[in-house]
């Protein structure tokens, strides 16, 4: 059993998807099957996590075909951490999804919806688990196509347009990835990441490899919404159904960032990426601009969901900044933020999902007065908001602490100042929502709004409390992030 663990999360979700399609007549059963699959995947991931922390890197030959010829699943501290985020968030949103999806999606489409969700989930898990370059591309496409469908199911008609935008940008991204992978294959004759890492140094001084690197970097940057390639993200997050926004914001960009880390640090190696090609000079300014500009844009948004979408772009900037330092501490801060931002943003978008469920929208006018009408929902929003700002005792602070220490370590004092300054922008946009919710009178049509039902509230609070728990009890996340950073910095051994 334990030998099969690396494949299980992907296999479970993939096998459940067609099963859900067969349950067209019983939306309730479709939901139950999806929930069971997500929780089973989470259980497998947790077992895998324990296993990897015990014995170190695990290699799994898919179908018994030995690497480098067959597809290898290679799990180490770095990707098991990301797997945990994906499986954990998808399991936690399933109880939330039931009523939220019923209120936002037509009954006849619900099984399709869950099928697409499982495929997206499976795709993201696959990208993370696999140790094969072409497999990364395939799973990226599975996840992307499923997400286009998920986003397009949003109630607002603009969702279709948002999905189309994402489709265009996403396809460009994955195509670039494919070209890059193709170039690498031409030069080395292998697709296995580990094998690539060993064979690339011999041929690294060729324009083909450099072109491959460029294609891969741009392709992945599109997927992870690196400023200024983020234009698909705000619309997609704003108009997607609530549950999809929660899921995508917590996982989709994070997985792409993981791929970037894997390619830059493990496959091409730190010397090639950062010394020969000086990627730090590319990533560093983009990260700074990506933190500053979207944060400012977020301040001027009138829709809380859109505001948080821009904040997501800014937070991608924080993660990329840590990566651009090319130090263990920097990568560790980035790994931490991948986890911390995932749970923080998921909690925030879930709270907004509760508001959508009751008040019908997340524009600041609609959120007015919700502090009294939906006290528990808004309390969760405020707590998770504090984590987004980075107040002590929340996970946001743990990230900031390490990121600033990383910048001090590299001697970049002004960056430390910059990071503290930009977190004040987060204070401003979170406070705009707080003021609307607590100090304005609700719209007439929302005067009788009640607190969200427990099935929405409990998952929201579980994630919110996780923001506090991991903000106080740090050894778990900091420990894994440290091991992950060391693994990534060490390259493939």
């Amino acid at each position: 059993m334990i030998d099969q663990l690396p494949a299980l999360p992907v296999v479970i979700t993939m096998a459940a998807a067609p099963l859900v399609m067969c349950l067209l007549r019983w939306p309730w059963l479709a939901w139950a099957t999806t929930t069971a699959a997500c929780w089973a995947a989470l259980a497998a991931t947790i077992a895998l996590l324990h296993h990897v922390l015990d014995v170190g890197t695990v290699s799994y030959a898919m179908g018994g075909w030995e690497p480098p010829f067959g597809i290898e699943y290679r799990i180490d501290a770095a990707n098991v951490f990301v797997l945990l985020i994906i499986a954990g968030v998808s399991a936690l949103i399933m109880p939330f999804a039931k009523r939220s999806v019923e209120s936002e999606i037509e009954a006849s489409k619900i099984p399709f919806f869950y099928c697409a969700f499982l495929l997206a989930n499976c795709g993201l898990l696959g990208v993370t688990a696999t140790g094969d370059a072409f497999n990364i591309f395939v799973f990226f496409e599975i996840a992307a196509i499923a997400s286009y469908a998920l986003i397009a199911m949003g109630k607002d008609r603009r969702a279709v347009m948002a999905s189309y935008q994402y489709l265009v940008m996403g396809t460009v991204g994955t195509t670039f990835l494919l070209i890059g992978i193709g170039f690498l294959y031409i030069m080395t004759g292998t697709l296995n990441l580990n094998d690539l890492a060993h064979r690339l140094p011999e041929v690294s001084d060729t324009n083909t490899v450099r072109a491959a690197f460029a294609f891969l970097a741009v392709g992945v940057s599109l997927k992870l919404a690196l400023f200024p390639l983020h234009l698909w993200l705000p619309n997609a997050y704003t108009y997607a159904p609530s549950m999809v926004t929660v899921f995508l914001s917590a996982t989709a960009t994070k997985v792409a960032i993981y791929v970037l880390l894997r390619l830059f640090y493990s496959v091409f190696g730190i010397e090639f990426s950062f010394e020969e090609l000086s990627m730090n000079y590319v990533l560093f300014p983009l990260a700074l601009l990506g933190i500053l500009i979207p944060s400012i844009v977020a301040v001027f948004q009138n829709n809380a969901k859109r505001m948080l979408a821009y904040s997501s772009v800014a937070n991608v900037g924080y993660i990329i900044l840590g990566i651009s330092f090319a130090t263990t501490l920097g990568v560790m801060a980035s790994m931490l933020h991948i986890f911390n931002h995932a749970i923080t943003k998921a909690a925030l978008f879930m709270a907004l999902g509760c508001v959508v469920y009751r008040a019908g929208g997340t524009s600041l006018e609609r959120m007015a007065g919700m502090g009294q009408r939906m006290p528990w929902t808004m309390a969760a929003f405020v707590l998770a908001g504090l984590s987004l700002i980075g107040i002590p005792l929340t996970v946001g602070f743990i990230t900031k602490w390490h990121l600033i220490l990383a910048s001090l370590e590299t001697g970049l004092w002004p960056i430390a100042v910059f990071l503290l300054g930009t977190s004040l922008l987060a204070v401003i946009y979170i406070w705009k929502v707080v003021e609307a919710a607590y100090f304005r009178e609700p719209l007439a049509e929302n005067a009788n709004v009640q607190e969200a039902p427990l099935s929405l509230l409990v998952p929201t609070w579980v994630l919110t409390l996780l923001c506090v728990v991991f903000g106080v009890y740090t050894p778990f996340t900091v420990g894994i992030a440290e091991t992950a950073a060391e693994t990534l910095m060490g390259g493939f051994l």
Partner: protein
Amino acid sequence: MTLIEALTGLAPDLAIYLALTIPLVGTVLIVLTGRWPNLREVVTGLTATGLFLSVLQLLPFVLAGERPEVTLFEFLPGLDFAFRVEPLGMTFALVSSGLWILTSLYAIGYMRGAGEAHHTRFYAYFAIALFSATGIALAQNMFTLFIFYEILTLSTYPLVAHKGHEAARKGARIYVGLLLGTSIGFQLMAILATWWLTGTLDFTEGGIMEGQVGHGVGAVLLVLYMYGIGKAALMPFHRWLPEAMVAPTPVSALLHAVAVVKAGVFTVLKVSIYLFGLDYMQALVTTDLIMYIAAFTLLGASIVALQKDNLKARLAYSTVSQLSYIVLGAMLVNQYAAVGGGMHIVMHAFGKITLFFCAGAIYVASKKTEVSQLDGLGRKMPFTMFAFFLGALCVIGVPPLGGLWSKFHLVMGSFEAQHAMMAGVFMLSTLLNIAYLLPPVTRAFLRPLPEGESPGFREAPAFCVVPLSLTALGGVAMFFLASPLREMLEGMFIY
């Protein structure tokens, strides 16, 4: 001491745990009993008393020269979430928790008398604020202190915005913006840099910087700390304090004359004495700079206070000025002035809380808010106005009130530091204090009532008058208790 001995007997670590849990449990109980106002107010009173008694348990240990210590957990490697009781923190914790008992009585009279709404929310956040003040007082390292500092800011936001109207929201926005902004922008930066350079954030006798941090970097850090501690209200980051006056008066009295603002100057003293160390600070170029800024704030705020007709605004600017006494005391970098600063935390607390209590009582009884409206009020509210007189004398520093001793030490400290000019600043400020604090008293007692007002006796409710009389008498008592207080504070330098 017999009273203290009779009440003690708890192990010190248990007392620390109690001091931190009682306000939290109190918060929960206040929310649960929200439907029965009388019960809720009893819970508040009991919580305050319980907190005070558990802090009091620690006093004999500190007086005996012990430093009780408790570590809750390790936050990050080498960085603990821990508490350690030393003289300065002991003083601050005693003052804030002791005055909370009186404030909770006063709040009953004020909140009902003035017809305020949302009482449960008010008492609940009040308890959280006192929880954080206790945490600040007992923190073992700068990181723990910072956490409670932020909780204090956030928990007082709903109190400042309490009335919910446009002015209250605007005031609260400035309040939270300035306090969060300075603490995240400057203080956190300074803390991170200190951690990076010295590898520790523990409050250590004699400081941690010597030999670890160069004097140039240290000078920058000092400025970052002093402006990062926004609650100390150094100009130009003092605006939040006058803005916070839109809050109901019990908040202005306990939080914006004692717990919150004293948490600021307490942190200033703590950082100066235990992080920088007085010897190290003497070598920094910016110490004098901050000293002059504090002197400027001290005089500038007094002059602004002179021009304010609104009584609470006048008291607020007076507080800004008095806080700079303590910052200035820390910047004089000698034991005399530092002890004087510590004493001033106590003396000013008694004086200023009395003045705010009186301002609130006047509002409850007569709806008057401006100084110019106070003519002849002494005949209608003799107790309140006499207490106001005593409170004013305490802030000015006239015997037989405690304010004399802290000013005495601060002035002696300026001579010892060979900054005789600062002694002049203190004296000039005393004159200004007289000029803006005594007119309300002279108007009330010496001028006739305006036309058409009946001269009958009309005091505020007893729940208002009794606490304010007690704090006024407390100011007198501190005149006689100054010597043991001083002895305890001098323990900061015995190691």
